[in-house]
């Protein structure tokens, strides 16, 4: 487990540090992440497995779409997490820019690839759903195009944070891109309401009852919740690794200086 890193006390935060900076101590973060990680992965895998089996083998087929509707159980959670992940990326970037939190830069760098992965799932499964139902793998309507833009924002962030010799400048550029891209999130959400699109409007909204049979809604909620836990677990694992890798670089640099 992560116990091995408990012993070091790197860059101890000033006494009485409060608020977010309580988690600025990398050792404390690693201990916390090490405790949360097995639970998040376990719960995520369990919920996702139940939801997927339920959706594939138990839930009823749709009267129009037949069994193709089962693609929903992977497509919709991926779509939700693509947007939620970007929200997390933007929040980490804001914390990094404004409060200079030492973990926030690393968090942004580690969230972006996971978010890009879930956006890719959303785009690919959506395409595989669109062909048999709509009659096209891809159309340039506002919903599909804005999600493709989201994918490129993630890729741009990944490229930008690695494009500079000094990581600090890469973090800064990436954070600005992430915040600028937030404009795309309401466009994705409301594209189906603001403009005529081929993509249908949301079935599950905060304001009204879901327009979905309950026997289909339940497995969807399971896969969505499971996928969220898996997303969190992936980010925590990557962030823990990144914190340790930074510690390794610091130790190597100190050693090189000492000799």
């Amino acid at each position: 487990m992560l116990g091995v890193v408990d012993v070091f006390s790197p860059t101890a935060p000033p006494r009485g540090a409060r608020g977010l900076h309580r988690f600025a101590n990398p050792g404390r973060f690693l201990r916390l992440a090490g405790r949360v990680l097995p639970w998040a992965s376990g719960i995520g895998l369990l919920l996702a497995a139940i939801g997927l089996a339920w959706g594939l083998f138990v839930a009823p087929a749709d009267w129009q779409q037949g069994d193709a509707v089962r693609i929903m159980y992977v497509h919709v959670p991926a779509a939700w997490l693509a947007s939620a992940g970007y929200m997390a990326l933007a929040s980490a970037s804001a914390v990094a820019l404004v409060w200079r939190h030492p973990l926030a830069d690393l968090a942004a760098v580690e969230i972006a690839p996971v978010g890009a992965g879930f956006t890719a799932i959303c785009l690919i499964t959506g395409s595989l759903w669109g062909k048999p139902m709509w009659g096209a793998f891809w159309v340039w309507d506002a919903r599909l195009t804005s999600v493709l833009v989201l994918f490129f924002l993630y890729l741009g962030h990944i490229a930008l944070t690695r494009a500079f010799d000094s990581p600090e400048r890469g973090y800064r550029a990436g954070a600005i891109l992430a915040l600028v891209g937030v404009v795309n999130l309401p466009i994705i959400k409301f594209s189906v309401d603001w403009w005529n699109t081929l993509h249908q409007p949301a079935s599950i909204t905060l304001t009204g009852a879901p327009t979905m049979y309950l026997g289909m809604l339940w497995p969807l909620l399971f896969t969505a919740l499971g996928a969220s836990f898996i997303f969190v677990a992936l980010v925590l694992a990557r962030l823990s690794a990144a914190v340790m890798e930074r510690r390794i670089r610091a130790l190597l640099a100190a050693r090189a200086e000492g000799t």
Partner: protein
Amino acid sequence: MKRKHRRLAIVLACGLGLGSAAALTLFAFRDNLVFFVTPSDLASRGHAGETLRLGGLVAAGSVQHATIDGQPAVRFRVTDGRSSVSVSYIGVLPDLFREGQGVVTLGTLAPDGGFVASEVLAKHDETYMPKDVVEALKKSGHWQPAAGPPPPAATWNTLPATRNGG
């Protein structure tokens, strides 16, 4: 003002500027952001020979099938409730095509006001329902799918259904 407060103010100000710029841009280009126009749009500003996407619902009782040169051909009316346009199409229709269903067709407006489609895409709505439930609603007279949108979900989302939907 502390430095982090100044940074916060800068970020918020940039966000406000960017947000309004984006909103204005989207508003200015709103006509180009729609994927299709409706029959009402077409009635008010359609020109013959123009290539565009026309979207709406397939009017109940309007679908006529035929065969032209061994190819399946179909003629139907697309309506948005206020206005409707006659569409002709030669080719294979998507599985979801039916009366009362949403469609988006790519084609040109003919001088006679009809629409000649080269591509028909099915647009499904946000309702997900098993076949058993649809049959039950039809039998009880609560919903005829060709006639309009389904009743509120609370009236049907717990009706019994089998896995294949009957």
